[in-house]
């Protein structure tokens, strides 16, 4: 009983983190066909900026409640600024090139962002635990869970629902779906594809930064956290189908539950379980569970 409850809660808790960390990656791939390796760098920037800002703020002795505002603000500021800089300053000159080349370009951006992070914040770790502790814990079947974890689950659901609603029920979202489906036809129809690329990239990087900023209170923010997250995020979007937001959500839940089950039932296969799931899914559906259908062009 305890174990079942723990698997469910831990599975959803890990899935929420995975989804928030990977949704920006799949959004950018879906629209721009760029596998953005630098996503990990934006995640790290979000985590560092939030941890740093929370640290500065909490030294003032004011109420911790305001830190819940600092987290999204830090992510939005850093996500928009650096996202715009990278897209306008570099990527727009590379559009139209092979996807493999874009992987290399974004990998270079990732390395640059890692060094920028070190230049700004050094190699010391940053801890900003106050938001995670301040809300306290709640006992579920005798196991204490931080309320902050439930908050992250809620935010992940809200982000997923918001993106779904935005894409399917707004004019801009519907236009974006057209761009995702066929960018050449979209351009021919008069849609400003370049503008959509810029906006999509900035939203994607901001979501990456938000993933990092929301995680910061639960971890020690250290150099290298971006490299760790990109591997997991990649596994999630491959399982779900690259470019599919719904797929990222399902992929995150599958990976989250695979990991939680192995940790509780047979810990030695914890690392293996994630990649086993990925291998099984790809064996059955080589393009992932919810891969976007692509028309064959002649």
């Amino acid at each position, binding site marked *: 009983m*305890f*174990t079942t409850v*723990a698997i469910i*809660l*831990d*599975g959803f*808790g*890990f899935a929420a*983190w995975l989804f928030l960390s990977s949704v920006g990656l799949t959004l950018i791939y879906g629209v721009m066909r760029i596998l953005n390796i630098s996503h990990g760098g934006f995640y790290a920037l979000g985590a560092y900026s939030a941890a740093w800002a929370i640290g500065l703020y909490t030294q003032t002795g004011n109420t911790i409640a305001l830190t819940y505002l600092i987290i999204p603000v830090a992510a939005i500021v850093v996500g928009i600024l650096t996202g715009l800089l990278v897209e306008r300053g570099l990527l727009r000159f590379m559009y139209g090139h092979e996807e493999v080349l874009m992987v290399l370009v974004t990998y270079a951006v990732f390395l640059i962002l*890692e060094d920028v992070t*070190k230049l700004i914040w*050094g*190699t*010391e*770790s940053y*801890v900003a*635990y106050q938001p*995670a*502790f301040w809300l306290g*814990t709640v006992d579920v079947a005798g*196991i*204490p*869970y*931080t309320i902050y*974890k439930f908050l992250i689950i809620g935010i992940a659901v809200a982000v997923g629902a918001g993106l779904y609603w935005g894409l399917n029920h707004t004019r801009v979202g519907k236009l974006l779906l057209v761009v995702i489906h066929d960018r050449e036809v979209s351009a021919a129809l008069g849609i400003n594809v370049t503008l959509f690329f810029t906006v999509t990239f900035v939203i994607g990087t901001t979501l990456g930064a938000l993933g990092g900023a929301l*995680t910061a209170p*639960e*971890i*020690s*923010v*250290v*150099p*290298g*956290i971006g*490299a*760790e997250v990109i591997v997991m995020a990649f596994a999630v979007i491959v399982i779900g189908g690259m470019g599919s937001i719904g797929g990222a959500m399902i992929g995150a839940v599958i990976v989250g539950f695979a*990991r*939680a089950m192995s*940790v*509780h039932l047979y*810990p*030695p296969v*914890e*690392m293996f379980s994630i990649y086993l799931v990925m291998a099984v899914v790809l064996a059955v559906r080589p393009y992932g569970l919810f891969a976007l259908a692509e028309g064959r062009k002649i």
Partner: protein
Amino acid sequence: MTHSTLSRISSHWLAATLALAVAPAAMAQEEKTFKLGVVSFLSGGASGPFGVPSRNAAELLADAINNGTVPAPYDSVGFAGTLIEPVFVDEASKNVVADYQRLVQKDEVDAIVGYNSSGSCVAIAPEVEKLETLTVMTACGTSQIFEEIVTEPHYLFRAASHATMDNVAAARYVVEHTPAAVDKLGEIAGINQNYSWGLDSWRDFSASIQVLKNDVGIANEQFPKIFAGQYGAEISALLTARADVVHSSFWGGDLEALVIQGAGRGLFGRTQMVLTSSDTAIHRLGRQIPDGTIIGARGSYNIYAPDSELNSWFRQAYFDRYGVYPVHPAYQMVNAMLGMKAAADKAGEGTEEAIIANLKGLSFDTPGGIVDMALAGGHQAITGTSYGTYKFDKDTGLGTVENIVSFKAECINPPAGLTSQEWIKTGFEGADCD
């Protein structure tokens, strides 16, 4: 011009020519330095708490040795007069073996010190003997290095105790010095990183506890990936296991994340936590580490360092230069460099061969106490260590330790000729704990 004048001019020319010919050689002789590769994490998750303190300690000590400002018995200049020229290399590499080869073959270093990760040490250990270059490992802890990988070392040394020391001492501290925990001790659990350091640490701790106290069971074992950062499921599993003692050899950012997440969910309050490599977290986490947590520093380093002139000098010099006090990886780097200096000074010659010949089996003083190169034919150090329980001082706002117990090296390290596992299985045969 007389014959004697001509002769005098000729002899002056000859002398001048000879002087010019000899001068570069003499200058080269004068400028001959000992090129020392220093490898530690300068980027990635291990850089802040481990790699950078190691690097800083090497930089500080190289300068102090070159200037002859280290307290006695290390107050002479250089390695027996030969100045040290450090070459710093980042350990955070996908190919530590290639980096090692480059240091030896391209940079042509005379020796190498460093390596924080057991993973790195396991990878380069065979290469050291192949490339025949003096290498002194500093912080990595796996006992496999000399027990399984390089069983007949010539060029390879390690100037710090391996993980068996940490975990035997931790087990002794729990069973012999923590009455509140041992009275009800029925089951233990562990959360350790899934590589040689974590696996060896848990193996030695769990086996030692079971030798020291009969009928102790294992409730749960967790081995998450290094740098995973998210331990929610593992903490739930440990909470549901309800073990009396939970052991962890986590270090660096992983350790800090475990403390934040575990303390936040009450794990530390429900069980006796034993953190074998946690001194690095004290000044960062402060009150977040719950009182009563058992703290290890991988030797009598940092908060456990002895009151000696050498330690006072090192702590102050480090603080003056870097603005923080040194943590255990910095002490371990100092062990290696002072060991090399002691060996060179003993030989009266600052060369690789002289250091190898004299470091073997050497016993020397360091800021953390005596280092005795007693195992693996004189290539593996043993040291004493200390454990204590954490206490946050509200008045000063600083973390402290109390109930400190120091263990002799001979009490917690296996004797020569026995592997760690063999020694633990014998019930610590020959251990001198008086």
